[in-house]
Structure formats: structure tokens, C-alpha cells
């Protein structure tokens, strides 16, 4: 029971990661590799401020730092004309050094010595706080996507050429989307640091794929057709994935193998429609 509760709580933290990635992967139709860096930036910034006695300001600052990371990638992409994937990799790589600096050169810090309790310090209310956070962020995102600005962002990912020939500035939309996405990713990293009382500069490896896994599993379960269901699916999927992950650990998988498990899972899930089509064609040929 204890194990499952903890899995759900972690799942809710990663649900915020998935919601952030939903903006780039699903809405803007262009996966963003900044994530593996900005997730850690969120954790580091929040950890340092938590140690300085400002845990909640730490969460807000983590979000803001994530927005800056995303804007950096958007800048490389739009103003310097660097390919989206490479732009993300460049930011992520640069962030590794910055994250180390944020933590004063230490590869990891412990938050057990924090002077002020965080929102997640009380084990009895942890679940409620995380449910509230994931639910609220999902709801705000849903409302945002129904505003004029949100609609423009969605149109950008749906038909960039059409948006270019309307009076919407596509470059500004990239800043908005990447900024918002990485802000949420960093917030997820910040909550994880507070939850585990621990921040680690190497903790970002595999986060992009982890967030993706949540989105994809959610889609497999809920088959969303509208953006509202799509956002809910990302939350549900992230929690489900964490539960599966926990089961795998119980079955004896090593924690260090889990990145491989995530990658294989995402690869298989994405290729299922293609495999199904191939199978159908084969059956037709044989018939």
C-alpha cells in the first residue's frame, strides 16, 4: 500500500512533466530536447532556494527558470535558424554547466537540512497537494488552449503555413510554447526535488522519454479526440506509467535499467499502428 501510494504521488509529479511536454510534442508537433536539462534546472533552483528558507518562492523561481530555458531554445530556433532538435540539444548541454553552478559546484544536494517545511513535507497531505497541483495545472492549460492565444499556438502546430500567412507572428508562438512547456517541466523537477529531499545534476537523463511515455500510455487508454481529453490522458498516463514502473521494480528489474524499459516501451507503442498496418497488408496478400 505504501509503495502504491508513493508511486501515485511520483506519477502526479511526472504528470506535470507530461503536461509540459504535451505542449511541444502534441500541440506544436515538435518534440523538444531541452527537457532533460530544464527538468534539472528546476530541481537545482528550487533546491537552493528551499535551503535558503524559501521553498514556495523556489517553486515559482523554478518555473521562471524553465521558461527562460525554453526561450533560449526558441531563440536558437527562430532567430539563429538552428534546427529544432539541435537547438534543444545545445540548450540542454549548456544547462549542465549552469545547473552545476546553481548548486555551487556540488553534483547533488540534500534538502533534509532545509530550515522551513515545504508543501510536501507533511506525508499526510502530500497526495492532496500533488493531486491539486496536477489538476490545477491541467485545468489552467485547458482553459488557456481555449483562449485566442492558445488557439493561435495550436494552429501553429497544426498548419504552420496557414498561420504564417495570417497576421500571427510564428516566432513569438515558438517562444510562448517552448517557454510554457519548459516552465512546467522545471516545476515538475522542482516538486520532485522537494518530494525526495534531494537534487542531482545528472537527474535529467531520460526525462523527455519518461514524459513522452506518460502521454503515449494515456493516449492508448483514453484515445483522446479533443484537447481536454488529451490533457487528462497525459495525467492519467503518467500515473499509470509510474504504477507499471513500480510493478517492474517489484518484479526485480534494476532501477538503472528503467531508462531502457521506458525507451523500449515508447518505441513499441509508437510503432504499434505501423505494425498493425503491415500485419493487415500481409494478411490481405495471403488471403
Amino acid at each position: 500500500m505504501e509503495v502504491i501510494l508513493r508511486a501515485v504521488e511520483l506519477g502526479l509529479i511526472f504528470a506535470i512533466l507530461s503536461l509540459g511536454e504535451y505542449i511541444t510534442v502534441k500541440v506544436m508537433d515538435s518534440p523538444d530536447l531541452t527537457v532533460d536539462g530544464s527538468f534539472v534546472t528546476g530541481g537545482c533552483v528550487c533546491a537552493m532556494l528551499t535551503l535558503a528558507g524559501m521553498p514556495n518562492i523556489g517553486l515559482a523561481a523554478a518555473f521562471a527558470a524553465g521558461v527562460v530555458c525554453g526561450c533560449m531554445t526558441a531563440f536558437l530556433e527562430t532567430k539563429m535558424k538552428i534546427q529544432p532538435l539541435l537547438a534543444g540539444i545545445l540548450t540542454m548541454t549548456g544547462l549542465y554547466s549552469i545547473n552545476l553552478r546553481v548548486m555551487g559546484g556540488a553534483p547533488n544536494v540534500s534538502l533534509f537540512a532545509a530550515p522551513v517545511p515545504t508543501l510536501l513535507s507533511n506525508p499526510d497531505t502530500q497526495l492532496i497537494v500533488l493531486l491539486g497541483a496536477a489538476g490545477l495545472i491541467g485545468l489552467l492549460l485547458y482553459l488557456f488552449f481555449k483562449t485566442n492565444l492558445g488557439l493561435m499556438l495550436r494552429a501553429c502546430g497544426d498548419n504552420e503555413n496557414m498561420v504564417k500567412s495570417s497576421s500571427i507572428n510564428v516566432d513569438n508562438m515558438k517562444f510562448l510554447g517552448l517557454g510554457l512547456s519548459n516552465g512546467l517541466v522545471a516545476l515538475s523537477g522542482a516538486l520532485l526535488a522537494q518530494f525526495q529531499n534531494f537534487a542531482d545534476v545528472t537527474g535529467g537523463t531520460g526525462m523527455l522519454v519518461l514524459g513522452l511515455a506518460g502521454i503515449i500510455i494515456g493516449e492508448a487508454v483514453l484515445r483522446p479526440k479533443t484537447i481536454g481529453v488529451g490533457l487528462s490522458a497525459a495525467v492519467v498516463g503518467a500515473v499509470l506509467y509510474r504504477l507499471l514502473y513500480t510493478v517492474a521494480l517489484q518484479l526485480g528489474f534494476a532501477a538503472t535499467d528503467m531508462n531502457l524499459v521506458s525507451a523500449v516501451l515508447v518505441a513499441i507503442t509508437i510503432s504499434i499502428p505501423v505494425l498493425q498496418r503491415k500485419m493487415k497488408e500481409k494478411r490481405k496478400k495471403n488471403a
Partner: protein
Amino acid sequence: MLELKNAGVVFNEGTTLEKTALNDVSVHIQPGEFVTILGSNGAGKSTFFNVVTGAAKLSKGQVFLDGKDITDLKEHQRSKNIGRLYQDPSQGTAPHLTVEENLALAYSRSRGPFSMAVQKSDQEFFKKNLKRLDMGLEERLKTPIGLLSGGQRQAVALMMSVLNPPKLLLLDEHTAALDPKSAQMILQITSQLIKDEKITALMITHNMKDALEYGDRLLIFHDGKIVKDFSKEEKEKLQVKDLIDFYDI
């Protein structure tokens, strides 16, 4: 209204692939005119539109809209005043957004970025306007537009470009990808909307009959130049067989 002065466009300048797509074109379009444009493939018609919208850069010359030099304005800065429809219906609409969301994209933006894009009063307004198309689209506001037929999508795209009437509407073979029946229907709706909203419009077509039947001025493009410019009176006397000769210049 719209004026091009010695407009020239050269692609891949200085390479073996050099291609002059527009060659020293000067033309003046009057306010309220509905101009049809004919010309063989590669004559430079789409490039002419691209120069007006800012999608293609001028190698030389200038573009004026309402007396203002817009040569150096970016595409998204010009598009407040210029609407455009393409041959491929999927180019003018966002497939995963619903019909009402696509319409809102064109209509609601002036309310500010953080107001809800589709409000109750908008739905009524959209329904009223979609009824004018007589395609039953008023019942399908919540349908993702990618699920509609090409003709229906093009009709919505057309509606999008007139809900916030632009000063200038550019139609680039916008009925060419449709079946004959839908094409005629869209053409009639186009002509009606242009009249109702008093929009200045340019329409490229490959159908000589349509070019003669619709509009009140006719331009013929060939090899990057405007080789003929028929006024309303001249155009009324023209017949399809007169036009065929111009394709073999």
C-alpha cells in the same frame, strides 16, 4: 488600392538555376475591382501573389497598398489587410481545430489574447454566416475541420477570410482541386461574398469561361509579364476562342 512598380523576382540569382519569375511588372488595381487572372503554368501568377503578401522577396521594384509602400513589411504585418486562399483546401485551415475554432481564429482575435476564443454569441454569428453557404455546415461547428470534404473546407476557408473583411483578397486557383459541382458552388459564393462585402479581389483560374464570366477586369500573364490587360468593356466582348490565342504567344 494595390500598385506594383517595376516589380521583378529572380530565383536562385547568379546560379545555373537562375529563373526570372516576374519581369518588370507594373500594374494598378482600383478599389473594389474584381480582377480575374489567366496564364499558363509557370507564368508567374502565384509569384505575383507572393510578392503582394510578402511570401516572396522582390529583387527590384516596389509594392504599394492604399498608397503606402509595403515593400519592406513582413508577411504577418501585411496579412491584417490581405486575405489569401490556396488551391489546396488543407492549406487554408487547421485540420485538428474544429470548424468554430478555425472561424474564431480569423474572427475573435481582436478581443485580445486571453479572452475565450469561441463564445456563445460567436456561435450564433458563425451559424448565421455558415447558413449563407447552404452546405449544412452550421450543424457541424464542433467537427474537426480535417474531417470535412475539400469543398466544405474551402467554403469555411473562404468564410474565414471574409468574416474580418480584408482590404484585398487573393484567390489562387481556389476551386481547382474541387469536383466540378463544388467548384461552381464555391465560385458563386466567392463572387457573392466579394459583392456583399465590397472587397477588392484578384482571382487566378485556369478556367477561361470562369475568367470571362466573373470579375470586371482580366489580366493575362505570360513568362513573368502581364501581356494583356482587358477592361470591363473589352472583357464583355471577349470569347473563349479569343483567349486561346494568347496562350501561344
